[in-house]
């Protein structure tokens, strides 16, 4: 799973005259991981301390001069480098107050970008495609610079990558509607040119993002039609290839773009499975709004989304777990987290260790088959072992049709308030071929209609209910039952057994008010006492939450609301009860621990049968 956290504004933005240009040229790191060097589109470079949202320093070139490339940090010398008016390279240090008094050198050709990365020397990429190391360039600024690109070819995007002591400059160019990727390797210098495959629409890519993974450079690029492609260039690949190669690509993601095409949008790879996309509508929100979304490319699922107020300007930067998004009149910093995705973790914690095998097997749909009609592979093929063999082939079809049926029923219920078919829906859920992702509105619909039976069925049978929905159910249950009664008891039991992940549940739990928390805590304590009395007399068939689940929820709830509970007078008795209970448990466990030590000792002495102080024994020697 992935999550976007509450962001903050790093700085305000001054709108540019040309509305399509971004007011920010670039954001770079310097030696400190909490620093960001922000270059605006005109004359200023500002150094921010990100966590404090505070500028540490700002440097501006004279009126009439223009910064033509984002400032970078030379990690080896701790100096900043920027280019003004295409030809003047300026180098200054943190303590220099005035950039004009710092070092500058004029070079003989127009500079496109200066790139710098930790572990490598800064490199200068000229507009005509030549590449120089900054040091060697500054030692002879007026050295002749050759043309690499042909006349009508222009650079659209560039970056640099340091891999295994190898330094690469990557840049893409456009020439007569065709796009090329150049991979310039430094020391020894080699240049490889690739042709990007033409998209049917002929439109140019909106954004590029390059990352290094497993000794390969992964290039991710987004087209206006919503397609995100990935191409892979080997770091240690065959270097001496003649001519222009066509760069193979693979479709990583097809974003739902709706009617129109994307305007200023940008995609950046977060890790091997997650891509952040900014400047596209949320699939389930009204159009016309710009969202920042994280997609899982393995499962083609949207994992997190956040609305960005104001117009998206296009580029987005990603450093050390934070996304830097210029939008509207602000530059926002949004922390994110991507957890390693596996099918199991995508489904949350395994709910019930004892029955996990038979339970989760059927209910997991194959994303591939649902989205692309691909042949299901691996985990998706698991089918309940209780079902007959002949059923296996049909299982996928059944899942699809059950899903479609449920979706239609739910859609119609939502459209016509009078239409609601609890029996049919319950039957569909009981097939165990449905899950929450297939029909996300089903559970909410049941909740809306106060169909608690269906709610409970869903809670028990769906393996993939999002934490927010779980919490919504919980809230509704508690709200509608003000005293502890058997019905609430059963309903909450269902909630306790759903799969969840602590990180994602906690923020939603915090939404409960103090009264609800106290009630729920009382319930949990009651359930705990009940089960600690008769652990082994659980009713067969009716699944009850396990001790661990109850304790986990108790801990979570206390974590989420501890300060509130401490202040609430009516929680006092409950808390002191819980405290004495925990104390007694700790004592019990420490006693058990001691016994364990003794028992182990006994075990070690297994054969030392009661030997007394004295005995007369008979032995035999041969």
């Amino acid at each position: 799973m992935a999550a976007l956290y509450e962001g903050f504004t790093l700085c305000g933005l001054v709108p540019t005259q040309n509305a399509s240009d971004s007011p920010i040229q670039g954001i770079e790191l310097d030696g400190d991981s909490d620093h960001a060097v922000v270059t605006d589109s005109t004359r200023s470079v500002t150094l921010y301390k990100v966590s404090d949202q505070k500028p540490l320093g700002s440097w501006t070139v004279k009126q009439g001069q223009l910064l033509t490339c984002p400032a970078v940090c030379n990690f080896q010398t701790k100096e900043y480098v920027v280019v003004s008016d295409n030809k003047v390279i300026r180098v200054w240090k943190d303590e220099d107050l005035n950039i004009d008094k710092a070092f500058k050198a004029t070079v003989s050709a127009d500079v496109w970008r200066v790139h710098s990365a930790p572990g490598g020397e800064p490199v200068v990429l000229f507009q005509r495609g030549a590449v120089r190391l900054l040091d060697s360039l500054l030692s002879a600024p007026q050295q002749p610079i050759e043309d690499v690109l042909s006349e009508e070819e222009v650079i659209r995007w560039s970056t640099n990558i340091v891999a295994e002591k190898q330094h690469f400059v990557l840049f893409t160019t456009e020439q007569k509607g065709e796009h090329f990727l150049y991979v310039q390797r430094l020391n020894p210098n080699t240049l490889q040119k690739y042709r990007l495959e033409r998209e049917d629409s002929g439109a140019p890519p909106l954004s590029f993002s390059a990352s290094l993974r497993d000794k390969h450079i992964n290039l991710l690029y987004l087209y206006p039609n919503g397609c995100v492609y990935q191409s892979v260039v080997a770091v240690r690949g065959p270097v001496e290839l003649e001519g222009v190669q066509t760069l193979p690509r693979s479709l990583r993601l097809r974003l739902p773009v709706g009617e129109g095409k994307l305007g200023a949008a940008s995609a950046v790879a977060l890790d091997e499975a997650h891509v952040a996309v900014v400047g596209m509508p949320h699939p389930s929100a009204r159009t016309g709004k710009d969202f920042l979304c994280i997609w899982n490319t393995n499962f083609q699922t949207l994992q997190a989304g956040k609305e960005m107020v104001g117009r998206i300007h296009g580029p987005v930067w990603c450093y050390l777990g934070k996304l830097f998004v210029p939008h509207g009149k602000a530059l926002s910093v949004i922390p994110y987290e991507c957890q390693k995705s596996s099918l199991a973790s995508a489904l949350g914690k395994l709910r019930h260790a004892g029955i996990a095998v038979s339970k989760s097997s059927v209910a997991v749909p194959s994303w591939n088959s649902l989205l692309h009609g691909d042949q299901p592979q691996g985990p998706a093929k698991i089918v309940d072992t209780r079902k007959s063999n002949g059923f296996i082939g049909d299982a996928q079809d059944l899942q699809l049709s059950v899903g479609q049926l449920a979706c239609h029923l739910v859609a119609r219920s939502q459209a016509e308030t009078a239409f609601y078919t609890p029996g049919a829906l319950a039957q569909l859920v009981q097939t165990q071929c449905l899950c929450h992702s297939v029909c996300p509105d089903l559970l909410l619909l049941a909740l809306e209609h106060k169909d608690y039976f269906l709610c409970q069925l869903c809670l028990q049978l769906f393996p993939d209910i999002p934490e927010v929905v779980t919490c919504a159910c919980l809230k509704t249950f508690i709200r509608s039952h003000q005293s502890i009664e058997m019905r609430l008891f059963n309903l909450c039991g269902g909630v306790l057994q759903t799969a969840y992940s602590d990180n994602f549940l906690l923020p939603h739990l915090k939404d409960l008010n103090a009264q609800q928390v106290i009630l729920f805590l009382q319930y949990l304590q009651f359930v705990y006492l009940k089960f600690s009395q008769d652990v082994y007399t659980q009713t067969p068939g009716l699944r009850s939450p396990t001790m661990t689940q109850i304790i986990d929820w108790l801990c979570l709830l206390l974590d989420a609301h501890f300060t509130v509970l401490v202040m609430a007078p009516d929680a006092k008795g409950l808390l002191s009860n819980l405290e004495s209970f925990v104390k007694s448990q700790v004592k019990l466990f420490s006693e058990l621990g001691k016994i364990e030590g003794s028992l182990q000792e006994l075990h070690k002495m297994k054969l030392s049968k009661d030997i007394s102080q004295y005995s007369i024994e008979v032995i035999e020697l041969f």
Partner: protein
Amino acid sequence: MGELKVHRVRFFDYMPTAIRAMAFNAHTERLALARMDGSVEIFNFTDHYFQEKVIPGKDSRSIESLCWVGGRLFSAGLNGEIAEYDLENLRPKYSLEAYGGPIWTVISNTQGTQLAIGCEDGTVKLFEVLEEHIQFERNLDRQKGKRNSPSDCSLTYRLLVDRGIGGSKSRETVVWSVAFLSDHTVVSGDSAGKVQVWDGHTGTLVKTHLVTKWDVFLPDLAFQFIAPTLHQQDKEWVRTRTFKNHTHDVRALAEIETAIVSGGMDTHLVVRPLLEKFDEKSHASGLRKIHFPHRNLVSCAKKAGLLLFQFPGQLELWRLGDSDGHGKPGDRLPLKWKPEKLLLLKRKGEDHICCSALSSCGGWLAYSTVSSVRIYRLQTDNNISITKVSKLPKVLRSAHQLCFSSDSSKMFAASSQSSVLVIALTQSESWSHSVTFPSPGSRQPIHLMTTSVDGKWLAAANSDCEIHVYNLQKLKLHCIVPVYGSCPSAMGIHPTTNNLTMVHADQQLFEYSIVEKQYTDWSRKLQKQGLHNVWLDRDTPVTHVTFNPKNPNQVVLHDMHMFCIIDQSLPLPDQKTQFYNQMTLRSLSEQERPSHLHAFKICKTFQDLLCVSLLDDQSLVVVERPLLAITSQLPAPVRQKKFAT
């Protein structure tokens, strides 16, 4: 071989005392070890860690530190005295009040001309080492507070040792130990569990090693001075390994060239070889734990069925129980009567008991301290009575070893300068000195003595590895057994053949014919063929040799972990033979068995053995002292969690 009735005895509550100090003499390769009761033991590290000497303790003596000066051994302790030991007569030679209160440590300079002691009152005192004595020289400047270690005397910086991480803020940190190295590095060990390395020139802390959560008593030895590859110039102290050989506090450490030697509250001595110093697996490269003394604390009256247990402060006399039933192997027989503690004899005076003896008839009992020898007449038949023999010859002042002749008419005492006194029972209840056998060679103390059943021969072994055989009829030295390079750890004279069987610390076994003054054919055969490697690889010495009066071919001997009956009529095992073959033999049929028999019949059923002896009624007495029982009687280790929780 057949069935044996075994008296399995576990009522000897032998309790070794904690190890307090150690000093290793690299020149002679002797380790001196002091225990809490003031006793000092000398181990010979060139001879399989054999405990060759024991100087008995004394109530008022407490040793905090030991120091070798050449071949001379000094100790200092909380009684405020420095003592030098007479290693030939196993007693303190003299002791000297240092007038500084309790002494915490003593150390000599490398030339061996001066001793420095650190006293409770904060002074360091220097003594000059003279030929026969030591003499006070001067005081070094006084430091406030107690000095735990003297080697920091030239320290001019005040090093502030802070409290441990997470340690209680209110708890004072005590520096237990300081070492000052030749390159001005200062190493400290403290009660917060830290070992800190300081730069002595600048007074700055170089490195802190959090070694343990508990106190560090001695810092130096788990560390090695190694040069990291990056900075060839700068050497630093790097923590290399942690050894945990002890269940309780380690109070004494010594580093020898190839091993770390440690001892502490859990009373056993551990020699942990540093494996990188060894090219191949050998006898010396194994971990050694020395639990029991390498001498007998149990005397057995074979005719009377009595056992005498020797403690430092008392003697216990027990009568074994009996059973009338018969059983098959593995059975425990019902007891007709239980064992009975007949006597508890407390010693007189401050000096601890160093040796004791019980006559085989059970009528006489003797013990010795460094200051006196006492003999008692025992009646054990119906009414138990004990009478001290009031008049003893004046020449009998103390003994390193005592033994009675088999007919109880004579007592032999190993006396000073390796001489043997023969005391004879003249009339009833009266003992007189009959003769003294002076040592023809060595002056080292005698640690083993044995007599022949026919009363004709006496053999005495000293720690110079010499074995002298005296003719008791002619009252003169009969012969000297050819000296072997390893110290004899046990010996016995055969009741019928008068052959002397000797086992040495290196596990070699010899049989020497006293009459013919030469090794027996069997012994030659054994030496020619060589002992089995399994036998040679054992790590505890044989401490007792006895014989089966009914079967002259059988020799019974034992070490800590097994007892062995050697049947000289059977073929010797060669290297390919399965040495521990009792299990195999048990599984074979009676027809197959003879072809698999060999001379060494080893039984490991009984463990942690202090004594194995054969009574005249052919039953075996086995005195066990399980190590677990010793451990359970130790004081609880300081602040150690009781269970793994």
